[in-house]
């Protein structure tokens, strides 16, 4: 009971500095965890989202833009693919599935994507996870002005089956550019935690023939999502479209293109990690500074404890333990900081990309980081502990007679 008593009393005596120091550690721990977990989960989510399709065919341009537009519903479409090109790829013997999409309209800023029902019936959005419509709804009829709404959009706009809406032209909401066409919502997609959740899906003919759209492009599509029969076929198609042709771009393999994206923005991760490490370093230094600054005031207590029989290693250990306890407090509070920070960041990412990050998603760093903070705290206690170890007893007891 001796050490816990000494720790408790010491922490209470220096409650303010203990709390401030623990808070700085908590901030460091929370930042580190947030940076790490957002990075890990974002990459994982983006990679999982791309597993549904092997390639994307689109207008000549950037492969990354093509993938972001067609799969993640971000960015503008680089252009159109003619119906002839769509039919050609659709019937290519190496292609198992070809899903056309058409973009160009929105509803209060939420993207409207035209497609065919086979996207929801013939494709899984992730391995073993087929799309589903919430009870009471159904998929749209491709020949009617009907819509199926992603779960996130439905929640944010409070849309339900039976509601109607008129699309707005363009990918950015402009109240002056509303189409007269009326669509009826016939289903709400069950949440997929993918970008599909933030889209209003309508028949592809709806986008192609929307009032005010160019009649000359009425059969064009924005891109074609492709599943191959065999991965090796991708190389053949890559040569055909990217090297020999000059009208279209085949983004293949999709996973590699996304990996390239993360490689390109890897420096951002490194900067964020560097900032987080520096904050951690400052937190460790704050443990050292706060305890060291109080050492003069503690000398008398240390000398008294020594006069009662406490050994040098006992007072050394008590200081280290105190620093470690500050690390424990900071580490535990750091998990709370992480939960708050991560939830905020996850909300922004979900709103912007549809990718859902889970604050409770298990990763070893959730344990390793708080443990590291405890070790950092204990390390910060070494210097003051050495000072305690060296405190001369007789000099710091009652003035001699």
């Amino acid at each position: 009971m001796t050490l816990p008593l000494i720790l408790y009393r010491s922490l209470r005596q220096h409650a303010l500095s203990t709390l401030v120091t623990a808070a700085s550690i908590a901030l460091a721990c929370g930042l580190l965890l947030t940076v790490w977990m957002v990075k890990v989960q974002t990459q994982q989510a983006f990679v999982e989202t791309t597993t549904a399709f092997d390639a994307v065919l689109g207008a000549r341009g950037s492969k990354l833009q093509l993938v972001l537009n067609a799969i993640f519903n971000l960015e503008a479409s680089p252009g159109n693919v003619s119906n002839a090109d769509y039919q050609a790829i659709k019937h290519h013997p190496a292609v198992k599935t070809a899903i056309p999409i058409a973009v160009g309209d929105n509803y209060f800023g939420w993207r409207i994507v035209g497609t065919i029902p086979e996207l929801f019936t013939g494709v899984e959005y992730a391995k073993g996870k087929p799309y589903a419509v919430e009870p009471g709804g159904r998929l749209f009829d491709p020949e009617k002005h009907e819509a199926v709404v992603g779960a996130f959009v439905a929640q944010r706009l409070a849309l339900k089956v039976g509601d109607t809406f008129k699309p707005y032209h363009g990918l950015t909401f402009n109240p002056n550019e509303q189409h007269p066409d009326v669509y009826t919502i016939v289903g709400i997609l069950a949440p997929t935690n993918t970008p599909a959740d933030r889209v209003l899906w309508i028949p592809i003919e709806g986008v192609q023939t929307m009032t005010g759209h160019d009649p000359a492009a009425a059969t064009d599509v924005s891109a074609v999502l492709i599943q191959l029969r065999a991965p090796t076929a991708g190389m053949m198609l890559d040569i055909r479209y990217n090297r020999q042709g000059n009208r279209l771009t085949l983004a293949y393999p999709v996973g590699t293109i996304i990996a390239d994206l993360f490689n390109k923005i890897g420096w951002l991760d490194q900067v964020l990690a560097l900032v987080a490490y520096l904050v951690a370093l400052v937190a460790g230094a704050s443990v050292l500074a706060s305890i060291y600054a109080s050492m003069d005031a503690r000398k008398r207590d240390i000398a008294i404890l020594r006069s009662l029989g406490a050994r040098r290693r006992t007072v050394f250990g008590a200081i280290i333990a105190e620093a470690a306890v500050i690390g424990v407090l900071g580490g535990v509070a750091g998990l709370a900081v992480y939960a708050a920070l991560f939830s905020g960041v996850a909300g922004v990412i979900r709103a912007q990309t549809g990718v859902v990050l889970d604050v409770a998603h298990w990763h070893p760093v959730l344990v390793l980081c708080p443990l590291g903070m405890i070790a950092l705290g204990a390390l910060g206690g070494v210097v003051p502990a050495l000072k305690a170890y060296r405190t001369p007893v007789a000099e710091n007891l009652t003035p001699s007679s």
Partner: protein
Amino acid sequence: MLSIADLRKSFVTPEGGSALIVDVPAFSLAAGEQAALRGESGSGKTTFLHLIAGILAADSGRVEIDGVNMTALGEAKRDRLRAEKTGYIFQTFNLLQGYTVLENVVLGMSFGPVGADRERAKALLERVGLGHRLDHYPRQLSTGQQQRVAVARALANRPKLVLADEPTGNLDRKHAREALALIREACHEAGAALLLVSHDEEVLAQFDGARDFAAINRPAVASSKGGAA
């Protein structure tokens, strides 16, 4: 119980010389005996008590407590011996201000063989009349009460020897008499020997044959001048 032979301790002076503060050829105390030493400020008597307690290491000589030669031990073993055999009452009490009265006494036994025994600590505080102040902090007590806590703490580890350094120096006459009586009674009840040093003649008069510290200490033979510890 306490046997001292040729005990010497010197300190380095600010000028770099050496000042011999303690040079006691012989001193002894029997088990349960109560003795007092008369000494003025700066005479080296606190250093003498620190040497007996093992707080300071002697340059040479022998301090034997309950059959154990303290001067032959390393610091860690001296710490343990102090925790096991010795209780110390300081002039300024040296209570830990951030700890309650009860915790101060509990800590007095935590490093020794008794271990932390709250019931014993409570009983000791009852004995010195502070059973109703267990959860108070030292600053909430009068000086007389603080000294009683120091007495309880000094006896907490069932010591063979209690050292008291000017134990009534900070008390008024009335409280000094009460404190001295308490220390003597408590040591007697616990079977502990008591070695008290003071310059207060009224205190010293309570002991049969109080001796002058100057009579047993011979710092005059020191090799160079310097201040006392």
